[in-house]
């Protein structure tokens, strides 16, 4: 509350954040991270496994607390937020969806509204609305269990659940990572359209450059717990940062290899 106007503008701000696993202070996962996520933007954290991008995400909804420095959400340090309150107003989607296998689709989506003690009618209407928003027919899907859904459908439910209590901030941790390429592409496209409509602040973790370029308003490239490049997609494509170049190279390598493969097939 006592922060500068500059910090108030940012939805999420990392200020000199270091995080190390308790007992491993000599090998921090995040090193002196500074980052501002503006309201309404989709910031993609891009990097290889183990670079600290998931940890960065978990610092936002206080699944983890920084070892030093501060993470500000709406101008207030996460350590000063009530963890439960902070999490309920922050949507969170993870790779396997993390749906509750003993709840129907309807109850999964209704989880946070029910925790927040919404009226039953309001919750039910919200669940219908969200299921339609993520492209699932409520009549068909509301009473199914997660194990009765395909991977793509589960991921849609995961997104619906994260949106249920109308959070202004969404955290997504490789939400489409476990899907087959076709479903994945379709969902990426849908999500891109969805996020344009919803005007939420989104922090999106991926190791897939295509996904980052498609969804991000800005891309933060991470390596060994640090952000080494922070650029718009256009800027990223033009960057001469060697690590970014290496990433871009993966796209071209795929192109180049296609020819001999086709040739061999004939």
């Amino acid at each position, binding site marked *: 509350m006592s922060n500068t106007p500059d910090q108030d503008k940012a939805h999420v701000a990392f200020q000199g954040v270091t995080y190390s696993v308790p007992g491993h202070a000599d090998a921090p996962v995040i090193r002196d991270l500074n980052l501002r996520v503006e309201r309404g933007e989709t910031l993609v954290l891009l990097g290889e496994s183990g670079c600290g991008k998931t940890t960065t995400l978990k610092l936002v909804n206080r699944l983890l607390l920084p070892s030093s420095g501060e993470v500000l959400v709406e101008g207030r340090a996460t350590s000063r937020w009530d963890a439960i309150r902070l999490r309920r107003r922050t949507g*969170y989607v*993870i790779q396997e969806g993390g749906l509750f296998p*003993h709840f129907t689709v309807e109850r999964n989506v209704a*989880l946070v509204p029910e925790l927040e003690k919404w009226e039953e009618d309001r919750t039910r209407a919200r669940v219908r609305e969200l299921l339609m928003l993520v492209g699932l027919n409520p009549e068909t899907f509301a009473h199914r269990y997660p*194990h009765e859904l395909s991977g793509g459908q589960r991921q849609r439910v995961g997104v619906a659940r994260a949106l249920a209590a109308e959070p202004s901030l969404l955290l997504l941790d490789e939400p489409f990572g476990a899907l087959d390429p076709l479903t994945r592409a379709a969902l990426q496209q849908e999500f891109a359209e969805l996020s344009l409509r919803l005007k939420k602040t989104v922090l999106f973790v991926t190791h897939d450059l295509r996904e980052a370029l498609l969804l991000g308003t800005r891309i933060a490239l991470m390596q060994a717990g640090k952000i080494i490049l922070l650029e718009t997609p256009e800027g990223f494509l033009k960057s001469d940062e060697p690590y970014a170049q290496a990433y871009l190279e993966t796209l071209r390598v795929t192109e180049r290899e296609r020819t001999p493969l086709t040739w061999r097939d004939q």
Partner: protein
Amino acid sequence: MSDAWEFFRSNWADILVHVEQHLWLVLVSITIAVLIGVPVGVLLTRYKSLRGPVLGLANIMQTVPSLALFGLLIPIPFIGGIGRSTAIIALVVYALLPVIRNTVTGILGVDSSVREAAVAMGMTNGQILRQVELPLAMSVILTGIRVATVITIGVAIIAAAVGAGGLGEYIFRGLRQFDNRLLLAGAVPSALFALFADFALGLLEKRFDVRRRRSGEKRRRHLLLRLAWAVPLALGLALVVYGAWRGAGFSTGEPQSETRERVRVGSKDFTESVLLGEIVAQMLEARGIEVERRFELGGNLAHQALTSGQIDCYPEYTGTSFVEIFKHEPITDPGAVYAEVQHEYAAKFNIETSPPLGYSNDFAILVRGDDARRLNLKTISDAARVAPRWRAGFGQDFMSRADGYAGFARAYGLRFREPPREMDLSLTYRALASNQVDLIAGNSTDGLIAALDLFQLEDDRRYFPPYEAVILARRDTMARVPALMEVLKRLSNAIKTADMRRLNYEVDGKRRDRKEVAREWIEKAAMSDK
């Protein structure tokens, strides 16, 4: 088999009482085990460092043999003693491990992404436990409860040894009395009960198996779920209420009515002792005394129960007390043994020894009647000659006591073809009759001696001390209940060896009801008048 069916038909009311006692023991024990085990299990998932020690302790407790555990609990004040409380504590100890272990396994088995999602959605610890972890672990926890229940139904059989009642009474009695009908009356309901519990809890378990859920089953599942919970719950409640209403027939022993005097009559765990206990009980009842029967106490439970005030009197044999309780070397003069025993009971335990009942139940060295006739065996010395070709079987009691096997074999220079087999006393009769062994040590008043055509060899070297039957009674009870004194006086010298053997035979041989046999004797011996 038709014999057994007939027995079931004519004794169903009594069997039901035992089934109810058994159910009650199991239900109460399992309920307590679940109420303790699930929270402890949850705690162990939160505090990793406690997991090893607590599970290890529960593991060790479960490896203590049940009979030993019951024995260990007897002398412990407040929680121990004879009767249901001891039994329930032991049963809970046995049931705890599977409940705790499966709670831990079930909760730790919840998918970490589900748990992470629950935290990230802003659920509190309590909400995560109640809405996510417990429901998802439920089928594993129920497996633990099912295993615990089946174990408990089995172990509860042993509870009869500490006077807690239940179906074990039939099984112990059946073993002692050589009566398959009693064995079946105990084993069949207990097995059915275990099968039913296994099946019903198995069904419940499947209901909680998340992978089996189908969208279409929503309504029906909820109804079935409710039923699956409601039926056992209602049954259990009904039983508990019924048990409470029936009063403290087997409660822990607080006097339930202030107006009538109450005496707790005990007995050891064989027919003759129970018959004597029953005779004392009925004679007391005839004098308007309320009697609580604590029969069939195994080992030296009867002695412990008497000295600790959990029973007021029980039948004993002077030789047994002389050697076993007071640790004297065996001597052969009955009068000297009686005098010494009477003195020591009074001095050490404030316990009164009744006048001798009139017979003694000595160790009887028994062989098959046809062997005795064929080999012309009259005395133990005669048998010592052929013994190297024979096998012997003895009860645990005879093998271990001071006046038992070791001294006996030394006195007669006995050697057998192989070391004697140690088994339950009642089984030795069966083993002898069915040629499994050739010589056993039974009791001289045993009804089975005539029933199975066995022959008692004469103790020609007078090795065995005299075992005159007496009733031991607490002096404080005798002061409080004059009728007890009166009954003990009436029984003085009232029962001859032949009488006792016949009474035993009525029960063991003819398989008649013990209460009925006792009642007949009281009437015949004109004990019923004041």
